């Protein structure tokens, strides 16, 4: 098939109709500018910074590198899904409690990366944490508080310590 000019995207369990978009737009652009979901942040547009991280069919990806029209038929999950009623997820709360949020621009992407890590491995080592967030740039925290936040989240979820 050829993707029509208008297409549907399944985002956070809801079908969204994308109308009048240029067919070459990235998923990040469509989420932010057409669907009113600004949680994924736009910084580098080349997959370097991770601030636009979302899940596509349970895979953590940079939404800036996904051609939106090619994501028809996938299940997309954004940071907005973590706190649908305004109550923070445990990972988000751990970021707040550990002081891992400063300017906050990188936070949605980092939270998505940490959620993905903990879904795959409930008790990661510090090296695994560092590898899991290696695609997310933060220019405020120096990452120490981010790693602290993961320690807090792991401790609250499992009672285990990040080794």
């Amino acid at each position: 098939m050829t993707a029509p000019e208008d297409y549907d995207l399944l985002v956070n369990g809801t079908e969204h109709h994308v109308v009048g978009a240029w067919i070459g737009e990235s998923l990040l652009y469509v989420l932010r500018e057409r669907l009113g979901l600004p949680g994924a942040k736009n910084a580098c547009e080349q997959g370097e910074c991770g601030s636009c991280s979302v899940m596509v069919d349970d895979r953590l990806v940079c939404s800036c590198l996904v051609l939106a029209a090619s994501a028809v038929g996938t299940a997309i999950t954004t940071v907005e899904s973590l706190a649908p009623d305004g109550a923070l997820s445990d990972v988000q709360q751990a970021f707040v409690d550990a002081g891992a949020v400063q300017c906050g621009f990188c936070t949605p992407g980092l939270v998505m990366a940490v959620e993905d890590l903990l879904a795959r491995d409930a008790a990661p080592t510090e090296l695994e944490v560092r590898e899991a967030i290696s695609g997310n740039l933060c220019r405020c925290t120096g990452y120490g508080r981010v790693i602290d936040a993961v320690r807090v989240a792991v401790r609250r979820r499992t009672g285990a310590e990040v080794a």
Partner: protein
Amino acid sequence: MTVLLPDSLDRACAQLADHPEAHVLAGGTDLMVEVNFGHRRPEAVLSLARVPELKGWGRDGDTLVLGAGVTYTELCDPAIAELAPALAQAARTVGSPQIRNAGTIGGNLGTGSPAGDTLPVLAALDATVELVSVTGRRTLPLAEYCIGPKRTARDATEIIASVSVPVARGPQEYLKVGPRNAMVISVAGLAAVADIEGRRVAVGLGSVGPVPLRAPEAEAWVVDRIDWSAGRLVDPADATEFGSLVAAAARPIDDHRATADYRRHCVSVLARRALTRMFAA
């Protein structure tokens, strides 16, 4: 711009035959950067996202067949890593988790960058690339597939279906130099693979030539420096000479990432280190 979304390999070939101008899209980690920055405005894009035939992998006797859509994350899976350790090591050095979840081995081949991290491994393994189109299938050795920087022997109507490598027959290493441990394009990359029974070592070099290079003189020289039954170097100091010989096979250039001299130095260090790790147990 038109986006083509075929749901089978046959349909993908048919659509590409009708639209030979289409840019074939795999994981998007190269193409979308160019689109986002306005450096490329393809008239048509053929996305392979829904072509199921490209996503699998399997073992056929002593051969590992990897569908072009296998991602770097999947290459790191222990089931594949056991059969092709250097390929898994190379995949793990690519980008970040986000990039490894999207990028594919077929995309690495399709872009054909001299810095593509899987390419030196595929060169060392004498991999073969399977190309399909409406007119049929052909397989090319990697050395015939890569013809220049970002230039390959793939015809505009062909889709990369799979790449085949021998199952590991001995220790393997992939090492690379870059400014940090993630999100870096290789300044220099080196794959070394050993075939214990066949008594040979093969070396593949990345980012130090227009295409992935081999180091035939070093490969021939090292055969007699290894105690094959013990799996050890006869004299561990020989790894240094091996490094020099491998570096002599590099054809690096100066560019914004590094000088040619530094790249050659990197290759000598990586070759010494790889050989030591493989045979100094």
